[in-house]
């Protein structure tokens, strides 16, 4: 053995100072990694992709249900979660991608500390997402009309998805160290999520294990036993499992085994609870809302009309009152139906959805569910306001129809009656169009969109929340009403007050009304194609059949 001259070995050198913990290293790394994650172009892109569509759909006339907003945050954050998954995966793979592992392996901090740093960094992004969730809900509450109160557990789902996605990204980097794994995981998660449909809420089962469960267009009141707290616990368990699974890549230790067992228990237990079908009591409560709305609604009187709403929707009463009062003010005092109330109801389309699923055996039987709403002579606004731009017009038309004696719902065969040729249809259309500015705008817009104003369509159909209306309005009557709307309202109001029966009576023809009010004669109408009995699609595909002459 060669020796270097004059040198000999000595005893061990003095012990180094007490070592700082790996936890401190992980925390210090987390601060760096969190900053990089939050500035990552992938994350910024995902965040914009999450938020901008919502801003694009912003409509100041919509009354937002904050309960649905809170639920919807989970869907809103899915692109952000996917971005965090990819970004955290790339960050954890960074040393491998850039060939820095060899250097890092010579350093005192173990790879587990780096992994811990990446996991902790994800919590910063989740905290940011939480702040964003609060901002979204608060922003809606401050800038728009709202109803209901957001459920905190529902709001937490979105940020938990972000945390889980980030932890999954780190886990994949440690177990499947290729950049291709993260995008594949995103697709797999999306496919799994799409297989858990909205019926899961109403049926229970494995489909409740989806990462979020959105009720679609159903009102919250029709969602018995939603169990958001258990869903949060389920997600917390999944996130913890992902974190433990990541650290296990560096060696199995007793604390990890214990933590993993606890996480698995929480996730499995919560999953079992939330997979139970809604309870009988839950269904009974939902059924009671449909069957006996009056037992659950609070009522108030405005301008001589009684308005009844489910508790969370009482803030909608002023929105209803505007078009109803607008119609009532233009109807002579003695002609207004004295017993007309405004009572909120679940729409026929929602009731039909539930009924179809009962028939298909997906839902348990709900004795009172009947898709067809009887005409009880009252007005029945729906469970929301503003999402349909014709809300004002729909309610005003219902009030006006009631005032002139036209039906408000389809006939027993489901057909909308034909009001063409009837002078009271002109009166009803004018009453509705002048009720509020929005109602008039909607009438003009619809008449144009359905090519009634252009003379290419025979009827104007105003859907009632995707449900066929009671009346199909003839093009001639629509034209006369639009002409009347161009006149001073007081002038028309005065003419109606002077001769209500003559103008709005059931036997008065359109020609007679036009003559009495000095309206321009109707131009030659569209080809006299008989559309009675044919089904035509309107709106989002609602089928409308036009039946016989309105009684």
């Amino acid at each position: 053995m060669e020796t270097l001259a004059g040198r000999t070995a000595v005893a061990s050198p003095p012990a180094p100072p007490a070592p700082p913990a790996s936890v401190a290293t992980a925390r210090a790394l987390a601060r760096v990694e969190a900053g990089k994650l939050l500035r990552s172009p992938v994350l910024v892109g995902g965040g914009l992709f999450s938020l901008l569509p919502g801003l694009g759909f912003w409509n100041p006339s919509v009354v937002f249900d904050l309960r649905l907003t809170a639920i919807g945050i989970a869907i809103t954050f899915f692109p952000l979660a996917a971005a965090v998954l990819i970004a955290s995966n790339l960050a954890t793979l960074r040393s491998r991608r850039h060939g820095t592992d060899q250097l890092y392996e010579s350093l005192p901090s173990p790879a587990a500390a780096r992994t811990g740093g990446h996991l902790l960094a994800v919590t910063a992004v989740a905290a940011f997402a939480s702040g964003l969730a609060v901002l979204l809900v608060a922003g809606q509450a401050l800038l728009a009309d709202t109803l209901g109160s957001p459920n905190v557990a529902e709001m937490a789902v979105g940020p938990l998805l972000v945390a889980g996605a980030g932890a999954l990204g780190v886990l994949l980097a440690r177990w499947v160290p290729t950049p291709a794994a993260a995008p594949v995981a995103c697709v797999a998660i999306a496919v799994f999520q799409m297989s858990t449909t909205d019926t899961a809420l109403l049926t229970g089962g494995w489909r409740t294990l989806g990462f979020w469960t959105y009720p679609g267009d159903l009102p919250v009141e029709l969602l018995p036993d939603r169990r958001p707290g258990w869903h949060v616990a389920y997600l917390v368990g999944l996130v913890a499992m992902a974190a433990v699974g990541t650290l296990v890549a560096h060696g199995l230790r007793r604390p990890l085994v214990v933590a993993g067992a606890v996480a698995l228990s929480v996730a499995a237990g919560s999953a079992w609870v939330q997979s139970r079908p809604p309870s009988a009591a839950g269904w009974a409560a939902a059924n009671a809302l449909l069957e006996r709305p009056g037992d659950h609604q609070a009522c108030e009187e405005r301008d001589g009309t009684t308005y009844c709403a489910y508790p969370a929707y009482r803030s909608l009463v002023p929105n209803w009152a505007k078009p109803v009062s607008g119609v009532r003010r233009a109807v002579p005092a003695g002609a207004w139906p004295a017993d007309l109330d405004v009572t909120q109801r679940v729409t026929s389309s929602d009731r039909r959805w539930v009924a179809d699923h009962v028939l298909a055996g997906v839902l348990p039987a709900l004795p009172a569910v009947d898709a067809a709403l009887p005409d009880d002579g009252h007005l029945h606004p729906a469970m929301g306001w503003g999402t349909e731009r014709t809300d004002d017009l729909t309610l005003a038309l219902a009030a006006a129809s009631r005032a002139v004696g036209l039906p408000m719902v389809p006939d027993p065969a489901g057909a909308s009656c034909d009001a063409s040729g009837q002078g009271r249809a002109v009166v009803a259309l004018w009453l509705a169009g002048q009720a509020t500015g929005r109602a008039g705008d909607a009438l003009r817009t619809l008449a144009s969109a359905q090519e009634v104003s252009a003379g290419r369509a025979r009827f104007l159909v105003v859907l009632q929340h995707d449900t066929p209306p009671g009346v199909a309005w003839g093009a001639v009557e629509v034209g006369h009403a639009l002409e009347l709307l161009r006149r001073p309202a007081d002038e028309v109001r005065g003419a109606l007050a002077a001769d209500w029966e003559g103008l709005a009576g059931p036997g008065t023809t359109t020609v007679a009304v036009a003559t009495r009010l000095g309206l321009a004669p109707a131009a030659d109408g569209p080809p006299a194609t008989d559309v009675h009995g044919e089904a035509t699609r309107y709106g989002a595909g609602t089928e409308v059949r036009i039946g016989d002459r309105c009684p």
Partner: protein
Amino acid sequence: MSQITVETAGLRKAYRSTTALDGVDLRVGPGITGLLGPNGAGKTTLLRILATVLAPDGGTVRLLGRDPADADDRLAVRRRLGYLPQEPGLHPNFTAFEFVDYVAILKEMTDRRARHGEVRRVLELVGLGDQAKRKIKALSGGMRRRVALAQALLGEPDLLLLDEPTAGLDPEQRLRFREFVSTSPDQTVVLSTHQTEDVAALCNAVVVLDQGRVRFSGTARELSELARGRVWLAEARDPAASLAWRTGDGGHRHIGDAPADARLVEPTLEDGYLLLLGRRAADELAA
């Protein structure tokens, strides 16, 4: 008596059918030890084992009085170690400061203020103080090498292992490197390089590796002395020489058994190295 900080005995390492180290015995103390050898000699493998990144297949290693095969000792060694790999793999989107700071965290410097002060110090030391905020991908090859060097200097390690530290550096930067690498007399530096000038300028000890074995271990002067009386100049190439090459003034320098009338010259470290390893080393140095 001087202390030994790096000691190996019978060190072996093989990669499949290739033997990288074949019974390396080494004793290194404080000061700068140059590790010379042609490509494939096993220098990088040896440094990786000393950096505790790679475990040997056989033999023993003691670093700073500890056995890196033991987990606790290995951690203790890593806390006093600075390592510059041959290809350090920097993060292109990090700034120079961010990268060195990141390594500093992994060196358990968790106090942010103190750590940032140390990062600024080492960046200044390698001449990158004014480039700290530039992204690594925007730096030249030489600057990137200096970033990598800076991280190795963090915490003034007792044992500094540098694999090709001056690769890509221009002559001025190499001079500067020589200044700061030799600052601490108590520090042990093992410097693997092809640059015999650096070894000659810096190293008080030299180890020559070839095909996984130590061919020489001694002082730089002793390596040069191997070529005493065996280096001569001539106008024309002498076919009797073991090695010969053209010099800048048009003549030829020869190494080998000098003819009687040869104009002998003072041997350099490079002459001793070439005499030891022959044509293969000469081709690599010329490349």
